[in-house]
């Protein structure tokens, strides 16, 4: 009897971690079939479609030579959706319809009810994110060992809501600290089998990149606004003056075309907005790249510390490429966009240090029967 180890790293108590994305054929078939069935079922198939894509992509992510395994089922997502619909959206729709019928569309009580609904949705947003993550982890296996998320979605939800409020009150300056808090809670609640992930670090290093991006965004806003203003003024300065004074002395050019000027100003505003959106997206890609990489470096599993090598340029190319991929295929290639994202993260992820694989025991966490109802309803899950 001979026992041959084929590339078997990771049997001992001092195993380094390696991450690779191993492509395998079949995603194209999944994408086409999903698109076809989505159309035929008026998108009800989306739960099964999502499951098929995840099963494929999970299976491409290899940790120390062994792939992840996705064990979720479409019916679980479907039931999760039905439950959320029955306990949340159906009653809310009925109440709003009855209020609108009985009071008319502009009654203060109806407006109040709508505001309350918006507030409730904001409050539940974090819960949707957390529960979606919990479902996905509970359906993720590595070497037959299940992952889990062990905390309370309510706590996370409140923290998330608080972070949103604080962000608007501090003009964004609370973002790095609050993102760190949220990440600490989410990562700290994650387990692979019995082994917890840990997250520890300060928000300080995030503030340098944040301050730079914040100031650049402000300057970009001012510059774009001035550009648009001067552009319009340069083209129509005289005519605008004529409107302002509402007197014209030149009989050959009596009435300035107010309608045409209004149109041009409209275009200038839209153009300025688009320009600003592009500039600020590029700017913030620098911050996001730094944040991702700093958060990874704050994360440990046993004695291994993670490292994620992100750059703003590669991140922009990733997002832009995915956008084009989805738009130009009318969404059919969405699974490939999701694959690009996962491949990007996995291929840039590494870990320093070692993990005691013998200490990773099977998870004893209870496994929920349904998943992601809220996340589907709010459309927050990215894969």
């Amino acid at each position: 009897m001979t026992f041959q180890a084929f590339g078997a790293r990771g049997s001992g108590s001092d195993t380094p971690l390696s991450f690779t994305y191993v492509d395998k054929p079949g995603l194209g078939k999944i994408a086409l079939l999903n698109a076809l069935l989505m159309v035929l079922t008026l998108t009800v198939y989306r739960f099964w479609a999502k499951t098929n894509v995840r099963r494929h992509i999970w299976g491409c992510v290899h940790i120390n030579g062994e792939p992840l395994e996705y064990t979720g089922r479409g019916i679980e997502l479907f039931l999760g959706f039905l439950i959320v619909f029955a306990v949340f959206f159906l009653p809310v729709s009925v109440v709003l319809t009855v209020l609108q019928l009985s009071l008319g569309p502009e009654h203060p009580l109806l407006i109040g009810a709508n505001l309350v609904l918006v507030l409730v949705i904001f409050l539940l947003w974090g819960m949707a994110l957390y529960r979606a993550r919990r479902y996905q982890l509970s359906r993720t296996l590595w070497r037959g060992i299940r992952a889990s998320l062990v905390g309370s979605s309510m706590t996370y939800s409140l923290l998330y809501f608080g972070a949103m409020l604080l962000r608007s009150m501090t003009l964004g300056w609370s973002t790095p600290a609050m993102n760190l808090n949220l990440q600490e809670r989410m990562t700290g609640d994650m387990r692979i089998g019995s082994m917890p992930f840990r997250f520890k670090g300060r928000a300080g290093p995030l503030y340098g990149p944040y301050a730079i991006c914040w100031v650049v965004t402000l300057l970009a806003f001012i510059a774009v606004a001035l550009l648009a203003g001067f552009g319009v003024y340069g083209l129509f300065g005289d005519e605008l003056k004529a409107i302002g004074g509402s007197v014209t002395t030149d009989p050959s050019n009596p009435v300035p075309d107010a309608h045409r000027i209004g149109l041009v100003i409209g275009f200038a505003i839209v153009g300025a907005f688009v320009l600003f959106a592009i500039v600020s997206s590029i700017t913030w890609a620098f911050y996001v790249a730094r944040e991702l990489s700093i958060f990874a470096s704050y994360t440990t599993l046993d004695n291994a510390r993670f490292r994620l090598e992100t750059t703003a340029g590669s991140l922009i190319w990733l997002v832009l490429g995915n956008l084009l991929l989805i738009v130009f295929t009318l969404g059919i290639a969405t699974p490939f966009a999701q694959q690009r994202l996962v491949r990007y993260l996995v291929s840039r992820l590494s870990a320093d240090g070692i993990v005691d694989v013998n200490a990773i025991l099977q998870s004893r966490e209870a496994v929920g029967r349904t998943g992601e109802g809220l996340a589907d309803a709010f459309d927050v899950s990215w894969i």
Partner: protein
Amino acid sequence: MRTDARFFDGEIARDHMAVAEITAQGLQIEGLDVAQRIWSLSGLTAVTPPQPGYPFRLSHESEPGARLVITQEAFARELVARAPHLAGGFNPRRAGRIAAIVAASALATAGVLYVLLSYAPQTLAFVLPDSWRDSLGNQVEATLANDGKLCATSAGNDTLRRLAARMTEGNPEIPSFEVKIYDLKILNAFALPGGRIVMTRKLIDAARTPDEVAGVLAHEIGHVYHRHSEAQLIRAMGIELLLRIASGGGDTVSSLAGLLAILQYSRDAEREADSFAQTALVHAAIDPMGFKRFFEELKKLEGSGGSGGGLFDAMGDMMSTHPVTDERIEAIKPLPEGVAARPALSDTDWQSLRKICD
């Protein structure tokens, strides 16, 4: 046949070297630190389908977390030959079963929804409180009239009031209603929720005698009497809700479907309104032949292609919301013997009605 394999026991993440062997009892697994076990072939599941060049991963129903990884392709082929269900791919029996389940549940759902949407709204329409009907009517009327001019209402115009009163005399079951003449770009008449009947200036212009206008009015009163528009709105809301369930919140499809559904009554509803009109006209001693002639004119218009152009034009026109069929024209009978026809309006009243929007 045997091969070296990698084994995970599902309890600890570390891997074990093992030897796998196909025996008469099943797949036997054994290693230095792996206790001997035999996995029955029928209980095996392929975690990843067998693909040349990729390791073959197996699990077994008896040990949910345990995984066996086989890299020797000849062994994997042999195993799949013994347990064909591992090959994955297209399974006609399974696909057939799923298709049958999906088709049956789709049919059942469609059946239940059809019955629900056909009968429930009509019942609900009669229990709707008057204030809700009124509020609904306000919203629909505002959308319909847009910025069209309101020429006259039966509340303020004596001619309209008398004509309406004559048609409803002696029938206390008819809910209160109001007739409104609007100057819109379309030729049509609508019964809206909350007992509002909207007729357009073009309709009055198109009518050659007051009897024709009276016939159309009687038909719309029929819709009010049967609460058709309330039922239709409830139905549209139901359809919108269903589409939202299906699509998870798609708005474009649902609102378009809703608009179409509101404006278009079913044939049954049209028949009910026609039959009401026949009775009401006879009761008021107005000759139903005017109504019949109006329908025949509309039918001719339809034959010649109508107004043409644009989805909204087509929907806004009388033909699309009140499709006139030969059957409907046939159903309109003259006054019974012994009932002497009285004109719907006097000449003076008719002239004033024709100038109502000037």
